[in-house]
């Protein structure tokens, strides 16, 4: 019998001789990310309890309508974005074998993001928002701060990459730069004043919602995984061509599919059809990307067992496939009819944003931080983090997928709405149970990040940065 929690994982022997300034910046981002994760999912957990006990409170700023966008925006812009950008600062500089273009701009970006999330959440709680436009509920001045951070980061990365001392641009940087450029234009377009009402609002909402997940989170974490996976396995990537193919098909196909959020809406019928075709087309991309990762991992069972970061990456890669395949089917008219508007989609959101994006971020964090600071977290706590989060999101996904399907069928059968509410009650309870496990794991994560923070003495030891050591 293997007891996964107690298997001794390989200690982090190698400490990267990284630039001390860069290390501090990366740690600042990751710390912010961990704090937002705890806050954002505390709100998420509370929301999930409200499904079971709707009468739990009567305070205006604790109402579902205000807390829900606080949850989604905090985990999006606070947790995931900070985490990804923080890791990207390291990866971009590292794979370009170049100092980061400007540390100052890096710190300014960091500050801008935190200000925008704090201000945005306070506004949301106070009932000041951009209307019910999912993931763009922050009013424009707040979102402008966030976009500003992206522009500065993009500029910073651009010059770092352009001054690289390597010949080619590593695929991670393709993904990271792609994600930044797309998201900057996305955020701008989504906030143009003439897209805020009427029909254009709907069309743009579909576009924005989908590009948000597909052109920001997805390429960012994929790019990071292209760095961390081979690095932690210490193995070559299976195929350069597959990576390039997945990258370009992602860029072409994903941009076409926003309308699948509004099937059976007044959007032109042909536009919906096109969105569906490319949603199925996305299977090509996803299979290519997943295959490349899994074929790279092939024969690395020992690494999965013996390191604590790789299991996170493995789960993330598998969920990337599962969640996206689920999405492709959800886009078919006949199935969307069942699943649209109900909890199945919430399940999909968490299978992807949590199982895929969040796990890959954690994999990167656990892979990188101890190597930067030379300080490890307790293995037991990392193991507990892994299992709580893994089992939690499994419960979350399975219960809402089953519940959502029954809910949709009940609606289609023309049963009274109340029936579907009573039907969902046990599934919502399960979601809250899964959510509790997940939230518990986030507390452990925050504690683990704390344990990995560099100590003062080490800061001084790696004071100067000369040149990146050549490959081992």
């Amino acid at each position, binding site marked *: 019998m293997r007891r996964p929690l107690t298997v001794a994982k390989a200690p982090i022997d190698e400490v990267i001789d990284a630039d001390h300034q860069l290390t501090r910046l990366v740690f600042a981002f990751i710390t912010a990310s961990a704090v937002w994760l705890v806050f954002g999912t505390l709100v998420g957990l509370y929301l999930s309890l409200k499904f079971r006990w709707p009468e739990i409170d009567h305070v205006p700023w604790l109402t579902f309508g205000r807390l829900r966008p606080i949850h989604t925006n905090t985990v999006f812009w606070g947790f995931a974005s900070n985490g990804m950008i923080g890791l990207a600062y390291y990866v971009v500089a*590292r*794979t370009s*074998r170049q100092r980061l273009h400007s540390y100052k701009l890096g710190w300014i970006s960091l500050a801008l993001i935190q200000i925008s999330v704090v201000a945005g959440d306070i506004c949301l709680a106070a009932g000041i928002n951009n209307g019910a436009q999912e993931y763009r509920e922050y009013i424009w001045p707040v979102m402008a701060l966030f976009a500003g951070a992206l522009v500065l980061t993009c500029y910073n990365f651009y010059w770092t990459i352009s001054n690289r*001392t*390597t*010949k*080619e641009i*590593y*695929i991670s940087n393709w993904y990271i730069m792609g994600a930044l450029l797309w998201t900057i234009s996305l955020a701008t377009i989504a906030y143009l004043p003439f897209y805020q009402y009427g029909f254009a609002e709907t069309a743009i909402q579909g576009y924005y919602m989908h590009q948000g997940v597909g052109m920001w989170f997805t390429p960012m974490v994929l790019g990071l995984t292209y*760095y961390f996976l*081979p*690095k932690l396995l210490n*193995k*070559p*990537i*299976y*195929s*350069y*061509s*597959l*990576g390039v*193919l997945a990258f370009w098909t992602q860029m072409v196909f994903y941009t076409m599919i926003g309308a699948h959020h509004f099937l*059976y809406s007044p959007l032109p*019928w*042909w536009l919906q*059809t096109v969105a*569906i*075709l490319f949603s*199925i*087309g996305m*299977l*090509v991309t996803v*299979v*290519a990307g997943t*295959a490349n990762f899994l*074929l*790279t991992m*092939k*024969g690395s069972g020992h690494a999965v067992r013996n390191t604590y970061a790789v299991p996170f990456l493995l789960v993330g890669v598998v969920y990337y496939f599962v969640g996206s395949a689920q999405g492709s089917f959800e886009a078919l*008219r006949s199935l969307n009819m069942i699943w649209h508007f109900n909890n199945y989609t919430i399940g999909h959101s968490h299978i992807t944003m949590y199982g895929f994006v969040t796990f890959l971020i954690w994999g990167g964090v656990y892979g990188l931080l101890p190597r930067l600071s030379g300080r490890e977290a307790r293995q037991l706590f990392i193991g507990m983090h892994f299992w709580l989060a893994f089992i939690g999101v499994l419960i979350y996904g399975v219960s809402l997928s089953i519940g959502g399907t029954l809910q949709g069928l009940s609606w289609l059968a*023309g*049963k*009274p709405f*109340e029936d579907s509410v009573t039907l969902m009650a046990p599934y919502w309870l399960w979601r809250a149970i899964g959510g509790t496990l997940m939230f518990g794991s986030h507390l452990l994560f925050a504690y683990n990040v704390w344990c990995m923070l560099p100590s003062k003495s080490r800061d001084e030891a790696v004071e100067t940065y000369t040149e*990146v050591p*050549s*490959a*081992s």
Partner: protein
Amino acid sequence: MSEGKRYDEIQGKIVHVYDGIEEADNDLPKWWLWTLYGAIVFAIGYWFYYQEFRIGKTPVEAYEAAAAASATTTADIDPTKLAEAATNPQAIAAGQGVFATNCAVCHGDKAEGKIGPNLTDDRWLHGGSGVDIYRTIFEGVPSKGMPNWGPTLGAKSVEDVTAYVMSLRGTNVPGKPPEGEPWSGDAAGGAPAEDTAAGADAGSGPSAADTNAADTNAAAPGPASPATPTNAP
């Protein structure tokens, strides 16, 4: 930095090296191609199915087809058939079932009125004849919150539930106060609040619906009787 390009036992020839990460360039696995072919075939098929040949229906077409399929529009509703249904215990029982699942939320368990009006008094907003009730139920009053049940329930169930509602007329279950015009399609004949459609159906002499209404009221005078005369002009 030009690291020597080595040959990896598992992954083959290494084409790039970045920060110690090596990248091989294996061929795409053969099976992978099937996702590509599959997606292309699917795309062509789906496009033709929905866009070119229009086999798959747009929501508007589907809605129209469904509306047509649920047969009877309210125009050719037969008052005699309704009259018969209203005296047929089976139809009433079936209608009661439909009512309990679909209508009780708004009209109350005993049709005594909640969000929707009390259906047991003898004042009606949209007319109290069988045909009127059928039409109200079938087409609904969407602007006032009464759904159109025709497309959801289909003609048969609407007929059953109409029969049930007809059987309730004038039973005056205590509940929401009466709303609308008084309607007395009873023996007095010249029903004051009758609207034109019912009148047109009636042709010469009292319509079948009216006759039937008279029947039910007469057959079950009970609590209805005292109220009726007061409301009658």
